[in-house]
């Protein structure tokens, strides 16, 4: 580890910290329907959308209507993308004459993008027309992220409101998230990325004669516009197979910093917005503190492990950190940082190949996803996921002192705890059971790229990533019918089996009366709460996943130290 390496993480985090409050205040204004400095430009467009879609912005929805609207919108988006991928060959903006996608892969890809996962069993440069990229995938990048933010806002309203039957209007929250947050930032960020070298054109691929006389086909496409929302919406689906490791998507160390910031800022701002909307900013900062500590913990381990390198390579006479599957312009620190950030959130973009990380370096992204991506987390999904853990922590704290647990002036009762537990239990069910099935079936073992414990890690990583809607991969694992179907199912339930209980919990809280805070009230804005919250997250995660992780990365680490290979 070096000082400049650490400086990259510290400066990155300092910028996130500086942006958290202004963004949080802005988000709160956006979702409380107030005027913002963008209103003069955006408001006419916003009204036009409501008129075309027949939406009454003053109409409010109860939690189940909100959930149904999310589900209906997702269903339509699924059918649309599936049809687009199955027919792209006959549609315009396809200069490479790329063919239609086969059914099981199109099914997997459509679910992958509608759930904000962006798990990719295809290679963008040879499997996607420009139309599919921009009007299919990038469109999903926008709306799946905006839907996530809308749901998070609805959940926060549930906490903030008292004796209310409604959580807001999904269509309004979706539209405002798009027009006031995702589109403006994407325009600025996309142009900045283009200035750094990310292409933005509709040219066919160009074949050149290289200096030595060989032929090389240089790819193109509308990449910068897609790259911006790919990171900002914590989507992570690369325009090309190598994702943000490709110099086309991420050409410089500066573009790398910009992408890192885009991944974190919406989630960080939402945490502050939570504090504003529940009228307890310290509670927002408490949540922020727990997230920050988990972030630095993950980065420290990943950076240390990658900088220490692979002893088996050292024996061959090449000394230094692990550069297999990394790019020279980023080096070890910026790659470890990206791997941590992309899995703290549900982004899943990669600037290095996680499959080739050292055993413990690869354990960090794996654990981050298994904890449920609540370290800032996905656009929206991080906040409502974290709130589930907050409710659970409040409940556990209540049990410890023998009082009725309260959260933001409301009693936490059986119903709320059931919903929170349901959302938290989705993860182990959808990760461990499919992993176990894959590990003992020929179809599950057929497409592994590595043998021994690392092969098992590839399977575990695939289901951890798809369940958490992350989308990064130990990318050696290849597609087949089994994985197309199985990961499709885990992505689908990983998203909606958390969204529905989260909204139900919010609906239940919104309907409650406020009770005054007493001397015995356990508040969610103290240092003790931060410690308890982190304890709950780590203990739930460790109890659930330690045995599986021990069979993969941990045993691999020990065997590599002994000199074993597979």
């Amino acid at each position: 580890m070096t000082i400049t390496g650490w400086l990259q993480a510290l400066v990155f985090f300092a910028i996130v910290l500086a942006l958290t409050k202004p963004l949080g205040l802005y988000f709160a204004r956006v979702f409380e329907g107030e005027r913002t400095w963008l209103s003069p430009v955006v408001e006419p467009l916003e009204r036009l959308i409501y008129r075309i879609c027949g939406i009454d912005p003053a109409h409010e929805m109860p939690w189940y209507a909100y959930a149904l609207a999310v589900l209906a919108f997702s269903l339509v988006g699924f059918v649309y993308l599936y049809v687009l991928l199955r027919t792209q060959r006959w549609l315009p903006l396809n200069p490479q004459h790329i063919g239609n996608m086969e059914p099981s892969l199109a099914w997997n890809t459509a679910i992958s993008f509608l759930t904000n996962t962006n798990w990719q069993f295809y290679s963008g440069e040879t499997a996607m027309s420009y139309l599919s990229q921009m009007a299919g995938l990038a469109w999903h990048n926008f709306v799946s992220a905006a839907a996530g933010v809308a749901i998070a806002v609805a959940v926060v309203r549930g906490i903030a409101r008292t004796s209310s039957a409604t959580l807001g209007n999904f269509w309004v929250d979706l539209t405002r998230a798009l027009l006031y947050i995702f589109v403006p930032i994407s325009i600025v960020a996309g142009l900045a990325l283009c200035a750094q070298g990310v292409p933005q054109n509709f040219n066919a691929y160009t074949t050149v004669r290289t200096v030595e006389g060989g032929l090389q086909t240089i790819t193109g496409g509308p990449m910068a516009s897609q790259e911006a929302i790919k990171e900002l919406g914590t989507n992570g689906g690369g325009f090309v197979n190598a994702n943000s490791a490709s110099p086309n998507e991420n050409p410089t160390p500066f573009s790398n910093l910009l992408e890192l910031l885009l991944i974190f800022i919406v989630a960080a701002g939402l945490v502050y917005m939570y504090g504003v909307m529940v009228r307890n900013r310290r509670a927002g900062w408490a949540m922020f503190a727990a997230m920050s500590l988990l972030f630095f913990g993950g980065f420290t381990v990943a950076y240390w492990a990658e900088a220490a390198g692979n002893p088996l390579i050292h024996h061959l006479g090449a000394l230094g950190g692990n550069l297999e599957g990394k790019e020279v312009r980023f080096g070890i620190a910026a790659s470890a940082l990206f791997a941590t950030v992309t899995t703290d959130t549900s982004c899943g973009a990669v600037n290095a190949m996680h499959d080739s990380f050292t055993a413990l370096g690869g354990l960090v992204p794996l654990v981050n996803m298994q904890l449920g991506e609540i370290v800032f987390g996905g656009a929206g999904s991080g906040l409502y996921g974290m709130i589930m853990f907050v409710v659970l922590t409040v409940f556990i704290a209540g049990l410890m002192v023998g009082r009725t647990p309260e959260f933001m002036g409301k009693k936490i009762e059986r119903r709320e705890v059931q919903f929170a537990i349901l959302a938290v239990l989705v993860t182990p069910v959808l990760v461990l059971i499919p992993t176990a099935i894959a590990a003992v079936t020929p179809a599950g073992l057929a497409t592994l790229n590595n043998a021994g414990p690392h092969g098992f890690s590839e399977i575990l990583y695939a289901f951890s990533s798809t369940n958490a809607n992350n989308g990064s991969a130990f990318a050696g694992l290849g597609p087949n019918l089994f994985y197309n179907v199985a990961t499709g199912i885990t992505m689908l339930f990983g998203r909606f089996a958390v969204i529905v209980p989260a909204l139900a919990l919010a609906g239940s809280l919104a309907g409650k009366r406020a009770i005054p805070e007493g001397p015995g009230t356990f508040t969610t804005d103290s240092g003790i709460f931060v410690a308890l919250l982190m304890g709950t997250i780590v203990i739930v995660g460790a109890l659930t996943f330690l045995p599986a992780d021990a069979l993969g990365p941990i045993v691999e680490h020990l065997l590599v130290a002994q000199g074993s290979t597979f």
Partner: protein
Amino acid sequence: MLKFVATSLRMTIVTIVLLGLLYPLAMTGFAQILFAYQANGSFVIHNGEPVGSAIIGQRWTKPQYFYGRPSAAGTNGYDPTATGGTNLGPSSKKLIAATRAAIAALKRENPDATLPIPMDLVTSSASGIDPDISPQAAYYQAPRVAKARGMSLARVDALIARHVDGRTFGFLGEPRVNVLRLNLALDDLRP
């Protein structure tokens, strides 16, 4: 539910027009006006012909040129239509064998090299089209390149030093040398 589906359909169509079509088209318009060189792929023109992209690595096999990193992109490496890494894990026999072979080849090709083996020259990049090598990797190859071109080592080393891109703002990323630009500069040197 039917009402939700109807609203969803309309919302889907409106947002596809706005975000799926107008947004990328407008961005392409801005980008082509403001940053035409980057937006079209940063092509490098040499002697009137495009010879590649400044941001994309290419294959080098002749001793008078600096080599890039091992590449897993496509069958022969450096194929931008098949980007990616080896995805071999730290305990992989294939990884160890490939690295051992890369070290042996590097030593064979650079018999006069005196510096320690640069890690980036014996490990595959993530994209398979990494345009850069570390400054150490360039200096390691300098004796071979100097010999193949009949130049002094000092002159080659001086050229490398001029092509080292430092860390951005002094702390972002790692120092690096763009292999294409360095090799073109070599070709442009007056003998």
